[in-house]
């Protein structure tokens, strides 16, 4: 970088807009150890400003540990945490300038809704009239202005969680952390709240980090999903990427349903590769990972990419219908192959579709381009 002669003061050490300037949170090699167990193993993660990132994973995968590390409720055993350009590795929670939404809402039972939302503003020593204005404003935003004088226990679960969201939004933190915030709500309310949180994120542009074990919730809400497994990041990417391009068997099984057929890689097919399995040899698309003939690998085909009707250029495997269930808009067929493994085929439900009966001989087919080659699963 050149310093122009026009500059009177010494040039500030401003680098070109680096990734670091746009990052809200950066985790660098963060490990959290509990006794002998590593809850988190050398995790690197960057969350960009304004992004909606979801930490998805089964219980014990380390997603809550990661969230608590960022919140400052625990400190890492090693590694570094940078929040908004500031090293926050050992910074106390109350100095991190975060917002957090808890699964149990964590509203103060002895305060009214108004007092609850005013609390973070009082912490910031705002004048009374400004507090009143801001609280009313945010109550309008979530359309709960009429409950300002009530106590949390007089509200429904969904209302309480909206109040707890409002309590975060009102002081405009740079980052809002959400720990399974909709876990205690029933399905309809959960879907409604997902959209509401998404709307608030779009309107306010606050960076949000969301923890859930519910893949549908992650797919619905996120800009980016970080899939966690055994204290590590298994895979991260846009919802589409994670769904259509899972990198591992774990990713494929955790998000969406999947048919996984183990086999040995051979030469052949359009891409130059095919997979020899117990139920036949199938052409496969080029792999994302280093693979050579003779390697073990796994073939992934999503049930909705399969049909029973066949057609030109379709790879297929023969089997017998074990069961065929109607799920409303879709029909799911369970096809028993000759090695007794089951392949699931999901088709759209049409009024004139042929009804599959138990025992029918069928061919479950898929376009080879819709299949995906994965490395064999390795135990963690």
């Amino acid at each position: 970088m050149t310093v122009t002669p026009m500059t009177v003061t010494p040039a500030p050490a401003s680098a070109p807009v680096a990734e670091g300037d746009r990052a809200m949170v950066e985790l660098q090699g963060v490990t959290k150890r509990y006794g002998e167990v590593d809850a988190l193993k050398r995790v690197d993660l960057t969350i960009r400003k304004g992004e909606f990132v979801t930490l998805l994973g089964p219980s014990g995968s380390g997603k809550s540990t990661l969230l608590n590390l960022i919140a400052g409720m625990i400190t890492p055993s090693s590694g570094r945490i940078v929040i908004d350009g500031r090293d926050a590795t050992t910074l106390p929670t109350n100095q991190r300038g975060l917002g957090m939404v808890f699964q149990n809402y964590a509203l103060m039972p002895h305060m009214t809704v108004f007092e609850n939302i005013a609390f973070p503003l009082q912490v910031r020593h705002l004048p009374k009239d400004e507090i009143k204005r801001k609280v009313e404003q945010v109550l309008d935003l979530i359309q709960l202005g009429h409950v300002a004088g009530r106590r949390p226990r007089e509200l429904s679960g969904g209302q309480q969680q909206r109040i707890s969201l409002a309590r975060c939004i009102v002081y405009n933190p740079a980052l809002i952390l959400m720990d399974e915030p909709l876990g205690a709500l029933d399905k309809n309310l959960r879907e409604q709240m997902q959209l509401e949180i998404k709307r608030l994120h779009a309107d306010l542009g606050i960076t949000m980090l969301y923890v859930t074990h519910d893949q549908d919730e992650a797919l619905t809400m996120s800009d980016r999903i970080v899939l966690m497994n055994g204290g590590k990041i298994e895979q991260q990417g846009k919802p589409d990427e994670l769904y259509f391009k899972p990198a591992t068997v774990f990713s494929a099984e955790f998000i969406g349903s999947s048919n996984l057929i183990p086999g040995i890689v051979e030469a052949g097919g359009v891409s130059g590769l095919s997979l020899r399995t117990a139920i036949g040899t199938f052409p496969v698309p080029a792999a994302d990972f280093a693979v050579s003939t003779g390697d073990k690998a796994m073939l992934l085909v999503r049930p909705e990419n399969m049909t029973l009707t066949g057609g030109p250029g379709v790879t297929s495997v023969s089997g017998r219908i074990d069961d065929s269930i109607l799920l409303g808009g879709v029909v799911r067929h369970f096809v028993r192959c000759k090695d007794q493994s089951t392949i699931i085929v999901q088709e759209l439900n049409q009024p004139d579709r042929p009804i599959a009966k138990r025992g029918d001989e069928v061919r479950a087919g898929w376009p080879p381009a819709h299949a995906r080659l994965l490395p064999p699963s390795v135990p963690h």
Partner: protein
Amino acid sequence: MAQSGTASELSLPSALMLLAPLTLLMLAILVYPLALTVWTSVYPGQFSLQAYTELLSSTLFLKVLKNTFEISLSGTLVSLLVGYPVAMHLAAQPPSRRTAYLIMVMLPFWTSILVKSFALAAVFGNQGLVNQLLGFVSGGQINLPMMFNRVGVILGMINFLLPFMILSILGSLLAQDRTLILAAETMGAKPLRIFWKITLPLSLPGVVAGVLINITLSIGMYITPALLGGRQDMMVANLVDFYTRQTLDWTAASATAVVLLLISGLLVALLGKVRGASGLSGAVA
């Protein structure tokens, strides 16, 4: 009857039979003496409320009553100020260590109040451990009179009252949702604000219960003021003893006892109210 099970319902005769032994015992050792006390206070030969009117106009009684309130209120206050931090510390411990600490809190109950009073005299008396230490450190300059005065009574009293205070505050601290503190911290609140705005208000039912239990227990105290207090620290129970054994005025003694009982009863009733109301304020007492 809402209950459908017949096994849980007793016929009236068998219920009465099961209750009879305890009822008889209570009649013999509680109701009869109590009735006798009330009777003695209003029937010194013929029916008369004179004992009560005399009592309420007696300077001695009013002074002793004032003493009693002063001592039990200040004892309760000290017990609250000392007990609250202990309860907070206990609430912050992991359960296994808390159990061990709780045993230490309960330890005073394992010793008779008489033995404890003498032990306190040995520790806090003019030649006691504390004064010997103070004298040693100050070169004989300092000797605090801590026994056979108000300080002695309160020391002896809080030794007995503290466990009740600690346990009832601990209950309402443990009932608090820990995520409330975490939430307040993420919102930027400092520990002092969290204490004043969240921890303390949510523990109030426990505090009120502890205070009422303490006052109720201390207001009828007899041994402690008798052994550790001075002549100025007579309490109502000591006055009953005085009328009974020194002046042999059993009518006055009975009337005094009845007044003390009424005051305690009133406090217990109040205590019940607070416990019932605690559900509304968000914590369990």
